[in-house]
């Protein structure tokens, strides 16, 4: 893993069709799909969710590679799950690999779980890509999430990018003075980096506290979402119907 990550700021900007839907609707729909994903006993729901989310991602405007990168983590985990289930799950042995017996049930169960992981990951990716966090927070507030939590999330969000940029600048400064030219120096430099970052946090906190006092020191999580529009209601109904249908089909096991 290298130090350079994709910048979250790139992902946070929303555009296109999904970006215009009310975040409350998207949050509810995402929750519904995540629950269906967890309770379904057949792979039908997962396959349907992956297909749907895939379509939504393709229709959106995030650059192509970024969309793929986002499901990299769930995908690696999915592979791990398939492998470990095949070995550990037990049941009928269909082959063996060195000291390990490979189990047929385990393989199927692992595949099923990995579908679930990818489907769940994609729901979250679609939600994250299409909704700026501050809008999501307004929706969370509407759903009666405690104010203090929303407040901390918003404040953290405000500073993540600044602090990350600062970290990268400071690390670049270390690199140009050869502070990362060997592993030992890198370790020593990383401590200076972490420490400097903490001191910066502290001092900037003091400076900003002054600035905040001048403007009243109230909560930043103010504001509210407008009423649902027509497109929002349609989207809500469509999502609800789809989730219900998937839940029914996958629970009834009639597939």
């Amino acid at each position, binding site marked *: 893993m290298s130090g350079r990550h994709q910048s979250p700021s790139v992902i946070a900007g929303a555009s296109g069709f999904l970006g215009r839907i009310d975040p409350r609707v998207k949050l509810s729909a995402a929750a519904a799909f995540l629950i269906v994903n*967890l309770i379904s006993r057949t792979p039908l729901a997962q396959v349907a969710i992956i297909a749907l989310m895939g379509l939504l991602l393709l229709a959106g405007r995030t650059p192509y590679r970024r969309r793929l990168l986002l499901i990299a983590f769930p995908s690696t985990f999915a592979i791990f799950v398939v492998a*470990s289930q095949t070995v*550990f799950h037990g049941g009928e042995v269909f082959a063996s690999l060195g000291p390990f017996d490979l189990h047929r049930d*385990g393989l199927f169960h692992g595949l099923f779980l990995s579908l679930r992981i990818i489907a*769940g990951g994609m729901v979250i990716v679609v939600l994250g890509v299409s909704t700026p966090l501050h809008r999501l927070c307004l929706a969370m507030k509407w759903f009666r999430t405690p104010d203090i939590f929303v407040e901390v*999330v918003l404040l953290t969000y405000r500073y993540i990018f600044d602090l990350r940029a600062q970290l990268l600048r400071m690390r670049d400064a270390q690199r140009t003075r050869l502070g990362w030219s060997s592993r030992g120096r890198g370790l020593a430099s990383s*401590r200076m980096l972490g*420490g400097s970052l903490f001191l910066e946090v502290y001092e*900037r906190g003091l400076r*900003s506290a002054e600035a905040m006092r001048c403007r009243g020191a109230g909560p930043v999580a103010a504001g509210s979402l407008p009423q649902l529009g027509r497109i929002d209601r349609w989207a809500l109904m469509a999502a609800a119907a789809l989730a219900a249908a998937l839940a029914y089909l996958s629970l009834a096991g009639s597939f």
Partner: protein
Amino acid sequence: MHIPEGLLPLDQAAGWYVPAMAFLAAGLAKLKRLLKERPQARPLVGLMGAFVFVVSLMPVPVPGLGTVSHPCGTPLAAILLGPFSAVALGAVALLLQALFFAHGGISSWGANILSMAVGGSFVGFGVYWGARRLGAGLGIAAGLGGLAGDLVTYAITSFQLALALHGHESIGATWLAAFGSFMPTQIPLAIAELFFTSGVVVFVYRRRADLLSGEEMQS
């Protein structure tokens, strides 16, 4: 490494949520009190949250492995900011990582809070505090805190994975297997966390002893 969305069955996901939310509520109550007393400390809270987020994405060279990895950061945060605040901020960081990077998940959020935020913070801070009581130096105590917090995080994660994935095997055996299979990578990572945590705390102490001795930011 956080547990991804979709891996835990619904009942287990919900089960992990219960204790996680209790700890989170305690941490939030702490922050709420801070903001009530000093409303202008809002930016500081946000910056600390961002600090936890950024530190857990910070590159740290791993001794022996020849790679660069990320520390959990929560033991460090707990030592610098106090364990309750570290839990709340860790939880926020986990949520944002899930939303931005699909790293972790929503239904697995509770489980991840419990392992990384709660386990890492409290065990890390506890070991640090205990070691200080026993007369260990600042660097050693902080390093041990980092090491313990890191290992505990993975022990809990392994247990959560074992519980979800054990199938026909016993939970204990799966847990050991999972924990054991993490070991070759996890031991060097924990050692990296040890050096990192110790180094940062000592560095902060050397540059601004007044900040570490000032108890105002501690738990």
